[in-house]
């Protein structure tokens, strides 16, 4: 097990802790950087947010905020870890502009949540996109504050939007501009100058290659983004060295793959939820999918969580699973050395055998997810996702569902309606398919459309037998299935007048 080497603020560091230890413990315990706070150790509060700088596989540098309580230290190998202490290094008036906005707008009361908010907003500025208020507020959707009521934080965000409306959109130029503006420290320039070559040659540590997955065959545990793993295992043993999925470049791609039968879009298991939704390939294969990104957790969690982890975690209400199931995904599994000759292909709905039971051997990992490609070509692929939870975000669904079909010659084809939260595993609704498959889609007859929606909803709701739990009662869930399916139709046929028919 090689030690993890990383740039911490402005100096390189060899972690004493094992690669499987959450980075928060290294930051507060080993590095004594106490600005990073522990509010929950479960990814919910954002007080532990740090910014991680890295070179993407495409050779582009990027800086993103993640919750350090769920981040494996090993995933920081060769990366740039920025904490609040590091942001301020060299700032002219002692505060960065983000801190200044918080101070001036009184956006900090007890102050315990403040470092996390500052990291999240700083990371948002570093993203190569036009800065607007909606984006700023989305960036802090994973940060909780119990004191302020968020009104003052909103004011601080608004100020930053005004101040930084004209940052360059080129990733490198933007980072440089932010260093110039003292939003980011000059250590970012050092990291940029080094290029994707990772740790400095003169750095006093064994210059070993990246850990190979093959070394970890039989490793006791697999960690993807860690957002489920560490919630369940918050205090791993001191020497914890799991197989870190994100350390393998071969699992991080999104690209086309053709086999004898058809063309697929292949998404590596290590792709983050964030990158999945941002991918132009995903967006073109599944038109409209981007709008559902924010239904999933929070920005901080999406920056960390992997698509593969969502599936293997086997939660009956996993959102990516619900979407991918409706999209007809096939899973590619492989032994943990990733030998391609032992790959297995499994339709996603066959992967779930029982509550948290999977068709996956302990020696196997999930390698990739394949989506049938080419269905959006004639613009007929219909995709809708809905979920019900207590809060608007940062909440696991009580019930979720996705609906996919194409319209061919006026009829529904390839209908797949997934349901989560109504059984021990996520399921496809046969009852809904039986109603819809082949049915005429009366696009300009709202009454008939409404009848079709109701028939589908009733069939699906009648066929499920959910249970009571903390997220909702059985009766409530059944009703929600019904309502969410109606919502699919309203969403897909927004302009048809179906809403007025369904909810007079």
């Amino acid at each position, binding site marked *: 097990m090689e030690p993890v080497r990383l740039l911490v603020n402005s100096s390189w560091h060899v972690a004493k802790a094992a690669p499987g230890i959450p980075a928060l413990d290294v930051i507060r315990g080993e590095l004594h950087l106490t600005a990073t706070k522990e509010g929950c150790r479960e990814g919910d509060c954002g007080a532990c947010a740090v910014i991680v700088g890295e070179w993407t596989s495409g050779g582009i540098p990027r800086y993103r905020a993640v919750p350090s309580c769920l981040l494996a230290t090993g995933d920081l190998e060769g990366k740039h870890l920025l904490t*609040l202490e590091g942001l301020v290094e060299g700032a002219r008036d002692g505060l960065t502009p983000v801190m200044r906005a918080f101070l001036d707008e009184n956006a900090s009361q*007890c102050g315990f949540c403040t470092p996390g908010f500052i990291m999240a907003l700083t990371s948002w500025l570093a993203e190569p996109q036009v800065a607007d208020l909606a984006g700023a507020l989305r960036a802090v959707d994973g940060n909780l504050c119990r*004191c302020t009521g968020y009104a003052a934080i909103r004011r601080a965000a608004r100020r930053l939007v005004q101040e930084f409306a004209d940052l360059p959109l080129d990733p490198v130029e933007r980072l440089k501009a932010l260093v110039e503006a003292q939003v980011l420290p000059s250590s970012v320039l050092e990291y940029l100058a080094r290029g994707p070559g990772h740790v400095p040659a003169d750095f006093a540590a064994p210059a070993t290659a990246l850990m190979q997955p093959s070394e970890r065959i039989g490793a006791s545990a697999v960690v993807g983004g860690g957002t489920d793993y560490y919630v369940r295992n918050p205090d791993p043993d001191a020497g914890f060295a799991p197989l870190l999925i994100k350390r393998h470049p071969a699992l991080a791609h999104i690209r086309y793959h053709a086999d004898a039968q058809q063309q697929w879009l292949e998404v590596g298991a290590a792709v983050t939820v964030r990158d999945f939704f941002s991918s132009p390939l995903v967006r073109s294969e599944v038109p409209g999918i981007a709008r559902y990104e924010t239904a999933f957790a*929070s920005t901080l969690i999406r920056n960390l969580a992997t698509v593969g982890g969502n599936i293997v975690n086997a939660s009956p209400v996993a959102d990516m699973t619900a979407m991918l199931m409706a999209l007809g995904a096939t899973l590619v599994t492989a032994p943990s050395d990733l030998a391609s000759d032992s790959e297995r292909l499994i339709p996603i709905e066959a992967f779930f055998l029982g509550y948290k039971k999977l068709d996956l051997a302990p020696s196997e990992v999930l390698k990739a997810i394949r989506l049938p490609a080419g269905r959006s070509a004639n613009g007929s692929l219909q995709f809708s996702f809905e979920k*019900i939870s207590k809060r608007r975000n940062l909440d696991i669904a009580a019930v979720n569902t996705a609906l996919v079909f194409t319209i061919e010659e006026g009829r529904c084809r390839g209908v797949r309606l997934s349901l989560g939260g109504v059984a021990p595993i996520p399921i496809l609704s046969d009852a809904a398919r039986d109603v819809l498959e082949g049915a005429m889609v009366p696009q300009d007859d709202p009454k008939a459309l409404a009848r079709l929606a109701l028939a589908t909803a009733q069939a699906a709701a009648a066929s499920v037998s959910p249970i009571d739990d903390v997220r909702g009662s059985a009766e409530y869930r059944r009703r*929600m299935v019904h309502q969410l399916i109606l919502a699919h139709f309203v969403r897909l046929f927004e302009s048809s007048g179906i809403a*007025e028919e*369904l909810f007079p």
Partner: protein
Amino acid sequence: MHEAPMRNAPTFSVVAHPHKKVDGEGLMLGRPAYTDDLVPSNALHVKLVRSPHAFARIKSIDATEALKLPGVACVLTWKDCPRIPITRAGQGNPEPSPHDRFILDEYVRYVGDEAAVVAAEDEATAEKAASLLKIEYEVLEPILDFEHAKDNPIIIHPEEGIHEMFPIGFEPKRNIAAAYHMEVGDVEQELAASPVRVDTVVYTQAQNHVAMEPHAAFSYLDVQGRLTIVTSTQNPWHTRRLLGLALQMPLRSIRIVKPRVGGGFGAKQHIHVEPYVALVTLKTGRPARIALTRREVFESTFTRHQMRVNIRLGADPDGTLRAIDMQVLSNTGAYGEHALTTFMVAGSKTLPLYNKVKAVRFGGDVVYTNKVSAGAFRGYGAIQGLTGLESAIDELAHKLGVSPVELRRKNMIHEGETSEVFRIMGEGTEGVAMNIESCKLEECIRRGKELIGWNDERLVWEVAPGRVHALGMAIAMQGSGIPMIDMGSARIELQDGGFFKLHVGATDIGTGSDTILAQIAAEELGVDMEDIIIHSSDTDHTPFDVGAYASSTTYVSGSAVLKAAASMRRKLIDTVAMLWNVSPEDVIYEDKAFRTVDGSRHLTLHDFSYDTLYHNGVRMQTIEVTESFSGEKSPPPYLAGFVEIELDKETGKVDVVKYVGVADVGTPINPNLAKIQIEGGLLQGIGMALYEDVRYSDKGHLLSHNLMTYAIPSREDVGSIVVELVDSYEPSGPCGAKSAGEIGIDTPPAAIANAIRNATGVRLTHLPFTPDKVLAAIKAAEGAA
């Protein structure tokens, strides 16, 4: 914020200005400031072993395996603790809470109750050792339903030696922690004679504080062998006193230091963690540290008291309110911290709102159950009582067919009036008669209506198929400290250079009280904010203060600071007059300098500070004053809350589109900080109304034990929150101030319940109003129709 100058109020130069928080920049930079940032590196790590059972007797604890683990320093059980009943409630002396708790006991009374203490060199070892302890329990049948606790054959506190400090109705053999009853006039007769009556019930849930900083403390022995505890507390002196009792130590050998605190809301108005680190340090001589996990905060620190509030109102057809009967059943959980007082406040800080009734009655019991103990929480009973009362008032408006706003205006309290309730009901004791010298509720309501766009003819409207918007409102009052019980003090000392040290016992828990107290001192001393160096809450180094609770800091501690600053001012003038051999009347102190009336002599404060400390020979002296303040009254702040909700009739989901809170807090010493207190309070109240709920399994296991299963509002959940402060000046308050800490939280549950009633025609009775409950109520009403 109104920019208009305040009527009959003096103009201020430092007070009533939005100064930045004195600790703002340091916190922004993430400087080590909170308890767990400051722990000595050689501290032992303390872990508490918690009961897995809702009610059980510990038969034996076998620590052999745990102690064999390298790095384990000690394991402590109830046998290692003095058998002294205490309360964990940080309250005045004698506490109105029963002494019904031992630091560690043979019995455990809820899942999460402390069963043993483990300390080790590092956290991982401590956890490992905790898991190796073999504890044998005799599992007992618990009581989980508070409506069946009283006189249940299961007795939660059968043990000998527990007691009340003065009569509070403590009857442990009946599972009653406290009880109270009062009546003015003849309520039954008045109700019988009232042509219009309503009878309502509201169940308010247990709520968690969720301060973002989990409870933490560390302890060490100083060079004199005294026990120092650095802790995230709201009340250093109560902590010291209670610890002295619990550990049987003289108070002189304990020092409590409060660093920055990451939010309290009442959660830290108790001793939760301090006794355990203290025990370990005393046992081992080593520094010891504890920081609760979020799960432990949920499982083992306090909640808001769950209550059932029954209200009966009687009125004349013209809307004149004749009688109010409020009967409350309160659930204090396993121990009786704040049992009596939260329950009494349900009446004492709500009933005076409608002070013109001919008869008013309040009473009920506070019962024990095998759930997490309830304690102090912002709103402290008032929010529970008010949710009941303001729901009932709205029902009355529906019954009478009148505007809910006008019904309130007709019956509510006004400036210059009083209420018998003030005199009769205090916090655990008799109250204090009080005339209301500042009450701008009328103005709060007028402005609130404007901001929300209130229209009695249009309280609900459709925005989309199946989705409606609706308005609702409620009014509220709180107090400003506990009269004749809360005391705060301040010491001011002139330093060379002409600046002042201000030492206060008042406890800044993130509210910004250090800042506003410095503002008050700077105002009175005629200096800049930078000239006041404030140091707070250290039992060795600052004067006494009861702590940060009961909305007392601005009014009580602020008055102490104002008094001290005024005395300092007099003392400075007297001293200079003496040096100059003139009468004090002839000395003018202005712009940080002294001069005689005739202009013949002049001396800057800066030069005087050097003279008095270095140059004046035998007349050299430290210029220092200490003053204390205890309130003779507790002037209420007021707030009118107006809400616009969106309700989805298909899913039952309720969202707050806009919440308007217009408050009368007297002079806001720091308008920004006062406003943000209220904004935060409103959101915490919205959380209570819509999302937050402490839930248990049928075995008494906590189901809501993390931030995912216990949902507090995130930024996405808030529509717009609009807070305004109306011009007001409280003659008895420091610079005209009252309080702003609690009043914000009170109205949302009632206002939102009233909006849901307007939207659906259904009165929801069980908080929080989650989609499944809203939907079930709508369906039930449709079924009945």
